[in-house]
Structure formats: C-alpha cells, structure tokens
C-alpha cells in the first residue's frame, strides 16, 4: 500500500500539486487521471522519488520516504517497477540485457538462473524468443511489453506506469491494460497507472483519482463514474459525444459497468 499525505510541489512560484492525499491499495490497479497539465506526472514522479515534494509525506507500507536513510530508500527502490511513457529501454542493450539488467545489477544470481527468469517474464508478457533483438528492431507495443517485463523481473511490490498506452493502437492498448491488470493480480502489486486514456480507465480502473489543477477533484471506482454528478469528472470523462451517449444509455438501463 502506498499512502500520500498532503503532497505539495511548486515550480518557480507556480504550485503544481496543492495538497494531494490518497491511499493506493495493494492488489489493485489504481489510476491517476486528468487533463494534460493537471499535475499527474509530477505526482507520479514524486512517488517515484524523482521529484522532491515541498511538503507532504509518501509512505510505502508504513515506511515514510522522507524519514528513511539512503540504504532504506535503496531497498524500496528495488521493490519498485516502472514503465515510462516512452518505454525507456536501453538502446545499446538487447532485450535480454534490458530485462535482466536489475537482476544483474542487484543480485548475485548465476547467469542460468537470470536467463530462466528473463524467459519466464518474457513469456508472461507474450514475447518469448526475442531475447537477442534490440529495442529498435521491435514494434512500439512490443517495446512496451519488454518495459513491463523489465519492471516485473524483480517481483516488485509497487508497479508504476506512466501513460502506458500512449502512441499505441486501440487493440494493442487494451492488451497492455489487460497485461497490467493480470500482473497486478499475479504479483499482488500496488499498481499505479497514470493515464488519460478513457478505454484504460473503463477497462482496468479499480480505484481512480481525478486530478485537476493540482488538486484531487474526484475519487472512486470505474463503476461509480456513470452515476457521479461531479462536474469535473463529467467534464473530463464525458467530453466526447460517444461517451456522453454511452452514459445516457447506461443511465436509461439503470445499470453500471
């Protein structure tokens, strides 16, 4: 579980996060949604330790980040898996080297054991046998899955994904969503996905937080979306005519998702 209390961050006098508090539970796909510029990325990067917040507290299963020493922080970092928007695969490494990198860096496992684990996670993400290829030789969707494989290779407790569907076709995007959901259940991770993709939200959003101008504007599950009268949520989710029609239909039928 990750708990965030009263997180604040400003850049050059402009406050980007204005006191956000949230609890992200274990074994759930938690989603942070919001328009561009709403503070999603700063929020995510603060939790990842890439940005130091001005105020507030982030705790990982009760371990408060700001109160930890370097060694304890390093331990938490090894429990984190991350998938960035652009995949962030190392260009000079082949797929096996990319996926095995955390294992080779932080463990003393023998090469055969590392190779077995790499093959296992590549199998899990549906990409067996591409070990010797380089990132530039595979498609964007495959690169995303390799990035996910690298993120889970160390059995993470916390899995972060920043815009995992960005730039992918709808079918591949749904595959990535399903994969994140399956892995969350398989590894029992606290998964946090940063997205503004409506399909993702409706597909795997077990716990959703809407950010608007640096504040938490709404919180709930995907089932609650169609029945909420929160103006910010409706403005964001039902901005397209298609989704407005879907909402009308759902409400006429009197059900949810």
């Amino acid at each position, binding site marked *: 579980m990750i708990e965030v209390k009263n997180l604040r961050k400003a850049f050059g006098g402009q406050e980007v996060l204005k006191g956000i508090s949230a609890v992200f539970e274990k074994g759930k796909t938690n989603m942070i949604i919001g328009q561009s510029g709403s503070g999603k990325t700063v929020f995510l990067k603060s939790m990842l330790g*890439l940005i130091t917040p001005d105020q507030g507290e982030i705790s990982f299963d009760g371990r408060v980040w700001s109160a930890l020493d370097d060694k304890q922080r390093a331990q938490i970092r090894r429990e984190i898996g991350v998938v960035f928007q652009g995949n962030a695969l190392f260009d*000079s490494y082949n797929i096996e080297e990319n996926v095995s990198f955390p294992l080779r860096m*932080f463990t003393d496992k023998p090469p055969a054991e590392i190779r077995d684990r790499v093959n296992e996670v590549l199998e899990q993400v549906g990409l067996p046998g591409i070990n010797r290829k380089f990132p530039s030789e595979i498609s964007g969707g495959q690169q995303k899955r390799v990035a996910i494989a690298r993120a889970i290779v160390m059995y993470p407790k916390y899995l972060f994904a920043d815009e995992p569907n960005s730039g992918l076709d709808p079918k591949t995007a749904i595959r990535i969503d399903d994969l994140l959901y399956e892995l969350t259940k398989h590894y029992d991770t606290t998964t946090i996905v940063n997205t503004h993709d409506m399909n993702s939200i409706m597909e795997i959003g077990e716990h959703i937080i809407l950010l608007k101008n640096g504040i938490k504007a709404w919180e709930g599950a995907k089932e609650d979306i169609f029945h909420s009268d929160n103006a910010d949520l409706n403005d964001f989710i039902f901005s397209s005519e298609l989704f407005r029609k879907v909402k009308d239909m759902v409400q006429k039928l009197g059900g949810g998702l």
Partner: protein
Amino acid sequence: MKHILGFFELTGKYFLLLRKAFARPQNRRIFWENYVRELDDIGLKTVGMILFINFFIGGVVTIQTALNLENPLLDRSLIGFAAKQSVILEFSPTLSSVILAGIVGSYIASTIGTMRITEQIDVLDVMGVNSANHLILPKIAATLSFYPFLIILSMFMGIFGGWAAGQVTDLVSTADYLEGIRMDFEPFHFVYSMVKTLVFAFLIATIPSFFGYYVRGGALEVGRASTKAVIWTSIMIVLWNYIITQLLLS
C-alpha cells in the same frame, strides 16, 4: 554579471556531478562490461581518424620547415628535429585532443542527452542505480586508459608522416631526418605530453557527459548540448594546455 553567475553555477553543477560519478561501482561486472563497451566506442573507433590526421600533420610540418630552412649553414637534420618537437610537444597531444573533443564529445553528449530525454536515466534512478556513476565513470576510465596509447601511436604516425613527406618531396634525406629525430631528445617532453593527454582525456569524458546529463527538452536541446559540449571541451583543452605548459615547461 548574469553570465558570470551562470558560469559559476554551471561549474558548481559540474563538480557535484563529478562527485556523484566518482563512487565505487555498484556492480563491478557491469562496470567492466560498460568499460569495454566504451573502450570500443570512444577509443578504438577513433584510432583511424587520429592516425590519419597525424600522418598528414607530420608531413606538413616537415615540408613547411624544409621550405623555410633556406640558410645553407643550417643542418638539414633540423627538419627532423622540428617535426619531432612539434609532433610530440603540441600536435599529437593537443590537436588530436581537440579533434577527439569534436568526435567523442558530441558522441558522449548526444548519447547521454538522448538517454535523459527518453527517460532511460530516470529508470536507472528509480531502480536505485547511481546513474552518473553508471554512465560517466566507465567513460572516464576508458579515455584515461586508452588515450595515452592513442597519442603515443599518433606521435609515431606524425613522425612517420614527416619522413614520408620528406621522401616524396625530396626535401630531406632519410639520414638527415633520422639524425634530427634523435637529436637532443628530452624525456621530460614526453612526460609533459602525457600529462597533457591525461588532463585532456579527463575533460573529453567529463564535460560532454555533464552537458548530456542535464539536458531538458527534446532532440533540438540534445543537438544544442552536443554543440556546447564540443565548444566548452575545446576551450578547456586550450586553456589547460596553456596552464600545463606554463607550469611544466617555463
């Protein structure tokens, strides 16, 4: 005033980055792998270019010295002597380093800069890898260990180029040229040259790494960082060349 403050800020950031880079590698095997990779990328791949340039520089120095040495009282062996001194003291260590600043500096700044803008460095940081140490230290180790050999090789090539030019143009005989090469050999000049090479190798690895590491933005910024890296590395090489010469030879 603003520019002066900016310069001091950059210098401070540069030394802070170096402090981060000079840590014990987190994993020796991966450090070794990276070191070997860097030896190939920023060492072996530059050999051909450096030797080619030094061959012709040696030739040009020989021809120019021969053409300007019209006094019949002066010994023709001075042509070989001038070529040797120019190549060992200046052309091989300094000019080669300025050329390496262009070739290797832009390569280092653009690769690290691209890693920054594509979030590869963020991934390393999130994993708990000391990204500065992981990316920069193998480059420093590779340049410091390889460039002295490269420069020694380039000295031989420069002197050989001078002899070849003398033969082709018939401006100096082999005997005179060899006599000049052996004349008044001062071992300290070689030490001075190696000291310069090591300092320049350090600058070539660290200044472009610094500009690449702190890139923000996109491809345009990476390009600008590469240009800045080459300019500042060249400026620093020229400045340190003067400082070392003043300290060691005057």
